[in-house]
């Protein structure tokens, strides 16, 4: 018995020996993950400590423990409610407008008979995906600026007062969500077009034989055919509930619209890197990560429960 165990052990060692070179190949990637992904994870200790910037990175270990002080401070402050509500609200606005849009676009594109035209529309719709939010902001300014923005020129011509859309709390979220949808709709429609292409054409022929109209075919064949893809996309997206689009908002917002657009990420950014409240903002970030993780795990669980392949 012990002989066999030894033989197995030997075999295992030999196997490792055999794969030596593969470990070497994996090493750069693993080292990278260890330093730049696992390294900052140690940093969450900051959330429970009183860290002073001059202590440097080592202060993570040497700083004094203060328990949950920073978390209490956050939840007692007036900002807690505002940033949490804004984060979740903007996320849901993006979901409501941004989620069905690419599906509808895919369905409409699918009805186009002329392949060249379809291809042209598709290519054009991918365009904004490759443009960064800085350029999107430039476009938004050109459209919505109080002074000379296209929309305001039109408003003036029709006898209205001009509105400073980008610094008006009433319109700011709509602009955020609208430009976000504009940027993402084409690229996101790819996955649905691929799913539609995967539907067995015999189903359509059979339906035609039974006298189904175009709308009926969409309703009874196309939509059920892509339903699994829609479901998994929706579920995966729910895992991002704490991410309302940090880089876009950071570029677009201004103090005038903080009340409707200050999300957890932007708050952490301003308080942390701006005001150097390192421990406090690490605590806020940790709160966000934990809630986000719960949603990721939960949505993955749901994905598997409805018979889809989850992320893991």
């Amino acid at each position, binding site marked *: 018995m012990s002989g066999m165990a030894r033989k197995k052990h030997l075999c*295992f060692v030999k196997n490792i020996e055999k794969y030596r070179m593969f470990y070497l190949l994996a090493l750069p990637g693993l080292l990278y993950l260890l330093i730049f992904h696992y*390294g900052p*994870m140690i940093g969450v200790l900051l959330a429970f400590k009183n860290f002073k910037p001059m202590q440097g990175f080592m202060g993570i270990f040497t700083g004094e423990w203060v328990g949950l002080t920073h978390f209490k401070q956050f939840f007692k402050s007036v900002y807690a409610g505002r940033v949490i509500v804004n984060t979740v609200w903007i996320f849901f606005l993006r979901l409501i407008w941004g989620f069905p849009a690419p599906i509808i676009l895919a369905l409409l594109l699918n009805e186009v008979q002329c392949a060249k035209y379809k291809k042209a529309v598709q290519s054009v719709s991918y365009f904004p995906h490759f443009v960064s*939010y*800085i350029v999107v902001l430039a476009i938004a300014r050109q459209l919505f600026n109080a002074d000379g923005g296209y929309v305001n020129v039109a408003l003036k011509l029709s006898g209205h007062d001009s509105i400073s859309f980008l610094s008006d709390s009433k319109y700011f979220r709509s602009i955020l969500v609208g430009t976000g949808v504009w940027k993402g709709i084409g690229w996101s429609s790819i996955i649905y077009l691929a799913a539609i292409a995967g539907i067995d054409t015999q189903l359509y022929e059979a339906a035609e034989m039974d006298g189904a109209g175009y709308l009926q075919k969409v309703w009874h064949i196309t939509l059920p055919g892509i339903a699994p893809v829609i479901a998994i996309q929706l579920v995966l997206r729910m895992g991002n509930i704490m991410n309302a689009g940090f880089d876009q908002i950071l570029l677009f917002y201004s103090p005038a619209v903080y009340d409707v657009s200050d999300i957890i990420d932007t708050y952490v950014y301003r308080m942390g890197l701006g005001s150097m409240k390192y421990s406090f903002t690490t605590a806020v970030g940790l709160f966000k990560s934990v809630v986000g993780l719960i949603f990721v795990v939960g949505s993955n669980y749901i994905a598997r429960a409805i018979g889809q392949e989850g992320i893991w």
Partner: protein
Amino acid sequence: MKIKMSASRRLFVIFNYVFLTLLSLVFVLPMLSLVSTSLVSQAEIQERGNLFLFPRKIDYSAYKILLNKDSIVWNAYGITLFRVAVGTLIQMTVTCMLAYALSKKNLPFRGIITGFVLVPMFISGGLVPTYLLIKQLGLIDSLWVLVIPNAMSIYNMLLLRNFFMSIPITLEESAVLDGATPLRTLWSIILPLSLPSIMTIGMFYAVGHWNEWFDAAIYIKGISKNLMQYSPKYDIIYL
């Protein structure tokens, strides 16, 4: 019945084409207008307002100011090109190597390593601890901060690993029998076979680098190292 259906169908087709054409304009026009605004003179803007699609007279003065010899734009372009070229190269190298190693089904400890790779997809230290780490590593204000801290996307690596796994093992076996090392096999057999996937992921990486501005904004203080996007920011249009 049949005739009526085709009439409503025709109506839909017309609507569809009109709608999609309008939608395409929505994607194209803002870009076009951005470009044409940069090509008109200040005088023409004052005369016509902002509302036009094509300039009457093409005026390069904005570009002359922007692209003069001492302009920071050249430096910014240089840095952007550096990060796209070097950054994408680093990402592709690291990604391909790890993906190939993890695509080996019999690799000992494969499960543990995969777990180690997956965890950071869902948990991160957050903005401030990452900033402190970068600072501790002395990467602040260094060009390398743009290409090292994002040396690999876990998601792209997993995509590539799945693709590598779908390549029939027999194809590399002959190379292994001839004594090729894993690195050699990866380079001469696997990569040529998966060229379309490699190109796709390379494009994802390159576009990501081209569009990225946030890391430069927080890690780099001096204007000389600012990226093309970050330094002129909005000015290009209204110059």
